[in-house]
């Protein structure tokens, strides 16, 4: 497949889906506290997404797994990198929780992830969250028409590693639009060559996943949850952007 370029009308549809995602994140931020279970967060998110006439993109999503994803959102706590299945796990003070949300409306997906703090977190976890966010904003400086995809990849890795952290290799960012995962793949680490040229109208989900320790990850027996091999913390920050002639248009930030 090739990278799909969207026209302005299609991008506006995507903006709507992404705004639902952004609102869901804002809503969940109010509920995140010690004692709440990840399943409760999932239910709040699902109710809200459906109340806005959208469908949670992740619910039942199979991807390369044999089983559909059981939750509406991915809730990954501490050493869980991504794809955490919402369950009875209670959040504790000092935890960091990454929430990845997808919403599908008008034929287009919105996709964004944030890492939240539960109560007061350690300095290193604070820094991990901050660096992950910086990786995204550094990367989008290169996400403009005429630049090349692999510049984005290098920016993420450089930012994370200069702060003493590592980037996950096994999971990558992606194009997004009518499909949840479209071309191109956007690794968070340096690639050979320049990669495809970016053109106005490409919509990309750039998602740095930054680990405190090793970059290596393992998938748990539930076939979904990805955790760091050394069980140290990981943070995730993702937004859907549209490439323009100038600064990237971040669709999932209102």
């Amino acid at each position: 497949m090739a990278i799909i370029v969207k026209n302005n009308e299609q991008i506006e549809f995507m903006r709507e889906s992404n705004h639902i995602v952004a609102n869901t994140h804002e809503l969940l931020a109010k509920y995140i506290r010690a004692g709440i279970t990840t399943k409760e967060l999932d239910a709040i998110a699902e109710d809200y997404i459906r109340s806005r006439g959208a469908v949670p993109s992740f619910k039942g999503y199979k991807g390369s797994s044999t089983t559909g994803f059981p939750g509406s959102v991915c809730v990954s706590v501490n050493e869980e990198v991504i794809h955490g299945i919402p369950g009875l796990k209670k959040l504790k003070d000092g935890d960091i929780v990454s929430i990845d949300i997808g919403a599908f409306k008008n034929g287009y997906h919105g996709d964004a992830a944030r890492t939240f703090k539960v109560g007061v977190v350690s300095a290193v976890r604070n820094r991990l969250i901050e660096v992950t966010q910086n990786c995204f904003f550094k990367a989008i400086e290169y996400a403009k028409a005429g630049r090349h995809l692999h510049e984005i990849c290098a920016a993420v890795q450089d930012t994370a590693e200069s702060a003493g952290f590592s980037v996950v290799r096994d999971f990558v960012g992606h194009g997004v639009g009518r499909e949840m995962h479209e071309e191109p793949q956007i690794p968070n680490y340096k690639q050979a060559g320049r990669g495809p040229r970016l053109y106005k109208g490409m919509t990309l989900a750039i998602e740095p996943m930054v680990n405190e320790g090793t970059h290596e990850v393992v998938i748990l027996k539930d076939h979904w949850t990805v955790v760091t091999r050394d069980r140290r913390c990981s943070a995730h920050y993702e937004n859907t952007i549209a490439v323009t002639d100038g600064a990237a248009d971040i669709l999932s930030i209102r």
Partner: protein
Amino acid sequence: MCKIGCVVISKRGHDKGRPFVIVGTDGDFLYLADGDLRKLAKPKKKKLMHVQNTESISTEIAEMLETGSPRDEDLRKVLLRFGKNGEV
């Protein structure tokens, strides 16, 4: 990778550097149109090796080519973002 609706940049010929949309394929040849120099009514037959794939596709045009006929104007609109010489 060169499918109908994909945008390519000409590498050879007097149209070198111009972006086109693939409107048809025939073995190692592509039929290219840009709605300006090459209209849909008379697309340019060009060798596959004489174009550079931008790895981009306009599904809008691909759908139009499948279900109805796009207008030259639609091609021009899509190609605007690919610049005259493949430069933005």
